């Protein structure tokens, strides 16, 4: 079943075309990796899906429901944007945990606020239990009451993943989740993402970890200068790229 349909997304910053006619689909339970050099538009694409940037054209559909339509010029209220973006979760490169809250509070804060507004009928105790379970799953059961500055980068990023999962997004997005980490800490984060993919969490992962993309993702998209150069089965694209530009890009990684 197709969860996400992105068609003809365009985005300009000033006079630079950052995204040119981006289209792809994502099925339920699939993990998609987006690879490409810096400035290729990968992050901007994720930010458009999460409504942190407004595309200049194209369509975004989730579960058949049109979330963004470039031809429709009615302006959304803050409320409508909030509701739409909750289809997606986003894990940032720099974690962006809230420093004055403990790991558990970071995870439960948004669901508790939503429950207070009466959006979901969940009880507060259930939300907190769920938050604990998520942190437990991230291997952080002994770190729930620690503040972010007391945690390592890898632990902080795992809290951030639990925080995104706590809202049950249809699609979980990762924006270079290990790029801000020391090399010895990337493994623990990649491991939990891998576990999520085994559980069939629908995910989009922008990453520079080629081996990880090949082994964990079902599909890969290679982007360059704002266009999708090649997309397909992860192993196929990374091991036998058809396009010259993909080959060049990947060769830089195998050498490095």
């Amino acid at each position: 079943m197709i969860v996400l349909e992105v068609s003809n997304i365009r985005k300009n910053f000033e006079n630079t075309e950052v995204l040119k006619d981006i289209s792809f689909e994502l099925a339920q339970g699939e993990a998609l990796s987006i690879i490409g050099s810096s400035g290729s538009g990968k992050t901007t694409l994720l930010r458009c899906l999460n409504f942190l940037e407004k595309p200049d054209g194209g369509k975004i559909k989730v579960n058949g429901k049109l979330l963004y339509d470039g031809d429709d010029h009615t302006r959304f209220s803050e409320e409508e944007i909030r509701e739409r973006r909750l289809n997606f979760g986003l894990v940032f490169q720099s974690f962006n945990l809230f420093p004055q809250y403990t790991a558990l509070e970071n995870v439960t804060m948004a669901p508790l606020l939503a429950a207070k507004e009466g959006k979901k009928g969940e009880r507060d105790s259930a939300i907190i239990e769920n938050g604990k379970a998520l942190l437990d799953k991230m291997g952080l059961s002994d770190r729930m009451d620690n503040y972010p500055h007391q945690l390592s980068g890898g632990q902080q990023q795992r809290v951030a993943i639990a925080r995104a999962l706590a809202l049950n997004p249809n699609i979980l997005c990762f924006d270079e989740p290990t790029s801000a980490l020391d090399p010895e800490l990337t493994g623990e984060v990649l491991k939990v993402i891998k576990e999520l993919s085994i559980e069939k969490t629908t995910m989009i992962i922008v990453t520079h970890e080629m081996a990880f993309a090949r082994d964990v993702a079902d599909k890969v998209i290679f982007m360059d200068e704002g266009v999708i150069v090649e997309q397909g089965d992860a192993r196929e694209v990374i091991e036998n790229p058809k396009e010259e530009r993909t080959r060049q890009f990947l060769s830089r990684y195998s050498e490095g």
Partner: protein
Amino acid sequence: MFITVTLSLLEGFLGTIKLFGLTLIFALPLGLIISFGSMSKIAFIRYPVKFLIWIIRGTPLLLQLLIIYYGPGIVFSNNIWGSGEGGRFIAALVAFVINYACYFSEIYRGGIQSIPIGQYEAGDVLGMTKTQIFFKVILLQVVKRIVPPMSNEIITLVKDTSLARVIAVYEIIWNGQTFIKSAGIIWPLFYTGVFYLIFSGGLTLLFRYIEKKLDFFR
């Protein structure tokens, strides 16, 4: 004599504290409003506010006191502040509030702008409202960052209140000075320094406590 002087200075110090306290009560929130104005996306709001901040920070508070007290009388040929002691106090309070609100606004602005954009974006993608993000996520981080510059400014305010005597608002220095004429002694004037020291010492301890309290996160 010492007791007479001490009592008189204590009475004057009440005036000092009244001006200090009321200035804070009004200038702290007004400063926040001014800081929002100076960060407004609307140029019609931003530029006039920045202009006001420039004027207030660019001229002496002493001059502002004189202009606010005497200015309306010259322009409207009638003293809007009233003639009595109360009127002079209100005029001084208005001058202090405007002056300190402008300084505070710049401290708030610095604090708010120093919060990484990622904090707002994290709140956004978690479906929080702008108000929730500001009050639940941003505000305490801003408070933590502005406590040191604020404590500086507030301790300066304790001493700046002595400027109010140019428009004959009774405060501690005013009372100390009267002993020069009435009794021919100058030490009561020097003695006022002790009151300032004790009060600002107390404030220093208070701010140190607040900083400690906010030390639980970074």
